[in-house]
């Protein structure tokens, strides 16, 4: 009888403790501190990244107007850290980024930055390389699409086919 009481007391105690830790975890915001604790095995490894873009239709040819808009956004919000060559500044150079990553991954990263850095395996790998969390520059969905088009232009996608 006594044993049962003790066991149940311990059980109650443990439950209370567990409960407590659970609460703490859910109430704290995801941030750099929590990153360190997280198991990299839990990271999402999806070529499309994490976010609202699950499928983006990209036409073969360049949309010059979109790319022009993207160029302006690049100057204002991206150029501080990303060169258009392969050279790494604060973040990686953009040359050939559209060949390395899917449009979904890039647009998700631009619009859902914090969650991507925290939970996306590839974004996390980039953080380990660059050591500076990419700032959320508050790009709208349209902004992200424009920037992607500008990246395509930078990667040599042309508006019209070269040969007639």
């Amino acid at each position, binding site marked *: 009888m006594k044993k049962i009481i003790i066991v149940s007391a311990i059980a109650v105690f443990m439950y209370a403790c567990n409960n407590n830790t659970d609460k*703490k975890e859910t*109430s*704290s*915001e995801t941030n750099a501190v929590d990153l360190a604790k997280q198991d990299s095995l839990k990271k999402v490894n999806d070529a499309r990244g994490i976010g609202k873009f699950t499928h983006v239709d990209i036409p073969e040819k360049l949309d010059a107007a979109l790319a022009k808009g993207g160029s302006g956004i690049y*100057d*204002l*919000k991206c*150029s*501080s*850290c990303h060169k258009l060559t392969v050279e790494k*500044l*604060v973040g990686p150079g953009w040359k050939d980024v559209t060949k390395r990553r899917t449009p979904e991954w890039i647009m998700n990263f631009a619009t859902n*930055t914090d969650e991507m850095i925290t939970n996306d395996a590839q974004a996390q790998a980039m953080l380990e390389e660059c*050591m*500076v*969390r990419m*700032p*959320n*520059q*508050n790009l709208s969905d349209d902004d992200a699409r424009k920037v992607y088009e500008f990246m395509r232009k930078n990667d040599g996608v042309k508006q019209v086919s070269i040969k007639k």
Partner: protein
Amino acid sequence: MKKKNGNYLLLATAIIVGIVFINSCKPKNVSSATSGDAAEKAYVAPGKYDEFYNFVSGGFSGQMSVYGLPSGRLFRVIPVFSVDPEKGYGFNEETKPMLNTSHGFVPWDDLHHLAMSETDGIQDGRWVFANGNNTPRIARIDLKTFHTAEIIEIPNSGGNHSSPFITENSEYVVAGTRFSIPMDNMNGDVPINTYKQNFHGTVSFISVDKTSGEMKIAFQILLPGVNFDLARAGKGKSHGWMFFSCYNSERANTLLEVNASQKDKDFIMAVNWKKAEEYWKAGKGEKRNVTYAHNVYNENTHAATSSMEKEIIMLDPKDCPDMVYLMPCPKSPHGCDTDPSGEYIVGSGKLAAIIPVFSFTKIQKAIADKNYDGMYEGIPVLKYDAVLHGEVKKPGLGPLHTEFDDKGNAYTSFFVSSEVVKWRLSDLQVLDRVPTYYSVGHLCVPGGPTRKPWGKYLIAYNKITKDRYLPTGPELCQSAQLFDISGEKMKLILDFPTIGEPHYAEAIPAELISKNSTKFYKIEDNTNPYATKGEKNAKVERKGNEVHVYMTAIRSHFVPDNIEGVKLGDVVYFHVTNQEQDWDVPHGFAVKGANNAELLIMPGETQTLQWKPDRTGVFPIYCTDFCSALHQEMQGYIRVSAAGSNVPITYSTGTNQPKATQ
């Protein structure tokens, strides 16, 4: 038998343990005179939010502090009337105009009271107004940004104490002068002992734009040379009236401690401001030439402008009948507080042994019946008995201020007897009293001055701390004490220190403000003329002996970070634009030897630091606000050459320029 003994032993141990336990719970001294669940009531777990914001005047610090309730945690000190090197306020070029006055740049003031904006008599969480006592000013703080958005100077005023108090739809904020003085448009070079002939008091009605919040002095009322102390707007049935406490009806100009305490009664002044507004609109006022500064901060340019206003409209009660009345109030009244219904006006004579409570209904009747007790300097004095609802008898010593809860109760602070007394408005019965540590001044109940008190807590702002905290030399911290007033008895649940000397404070449910809080400034909307949007626009320009550096900051570098071509005698302006577009990523900027302060630049904002190098050499610049893992790398150099040098202006980041010839 053995078993029995064992049982007795167990019982005895239990009793001893019990006694020890009881003993340990006994209050040992005043500091443990709190209820057992005090810690739980004031506890806000890490990562959890407080229920209320508490905006607290910073007294002679000139600033306003923001606390959470019930935790008493300090969130922010908002710079208002005093410069703040931490935030660059009053040091950067953009905010210097905020502290401009008709006396020039005034970097300090004494902030006593605040008033939160209201709609239909309920706090709406848009703005909080505050007074500067010393160089009379009223400030408006925007609660989206927690920035001082506007400061207006008050002419014809000295010691702007009786302010700011707000009407129930934020139509007007009032400012009454504590000191009566010769008016600004006359030659004030008069003997001080001509007080009775030459000195006047005024109260100002400052209109508040419904959308922008912008302030404008609508009119002033010219009044006898008494001291105006505090005020409160009518509400509900008394909306349209404003009540001011006044002392020194003796009109003494020296040793007021004695000479202004001669008369048995001073006054509470009742102003029918709707009537005054009619007179003002009908052109009954007199235009007077005055000079006062009006400073406005623009959230798009991230900069303030200061302009000098030259005129005021003065209403004289002589020409405006039925606008101003006086009610006798015992012994130098201080607090003058209207209850949530608007029916009762509580006067607190600092030296009185009772608290008189006036009835708005009776005031209206006495006015209709012309039930006067003579005139004071041409203003009708209503008969005390005719306007009195009743007196709270023997409440305590030195009543100062009264706040109200949502259950028909009033709470009055007593400075001399160091206590808060709870009493019922309807029958004026004292219900409870608690000691404060020590010498309480203002009180705050969330929503206490409005038609809708939120109740729950009462905070006492004490003038003296003495032994309540660890000593810190001769100057001790100021202190607030939090009481739970949800039950019949007030329960002390927390002490917390405050900045400066806390005078009035207001508290408001957190969600009324938190939901509107600005997170960052959109860089596309930044219209500062010196903004740099994107690193490719960063540059350095010489204009005569001025060097303008258009600089960007982002995690974790400045562009440019190597600057040459500055010469001794130049005035350098660093216009730094924070390129970040996310919450909580300010960058700082500092340069060695600057005679002002740092910049602290919010995301999307531009701020400008002026720097006059005093010697040749190379001067480091760096980011002062830890911004990323590479924050310590966020730095650069400015080279300063001799006055006659021919080193050209060059600037760069990341690429070494060819070495410039000397």
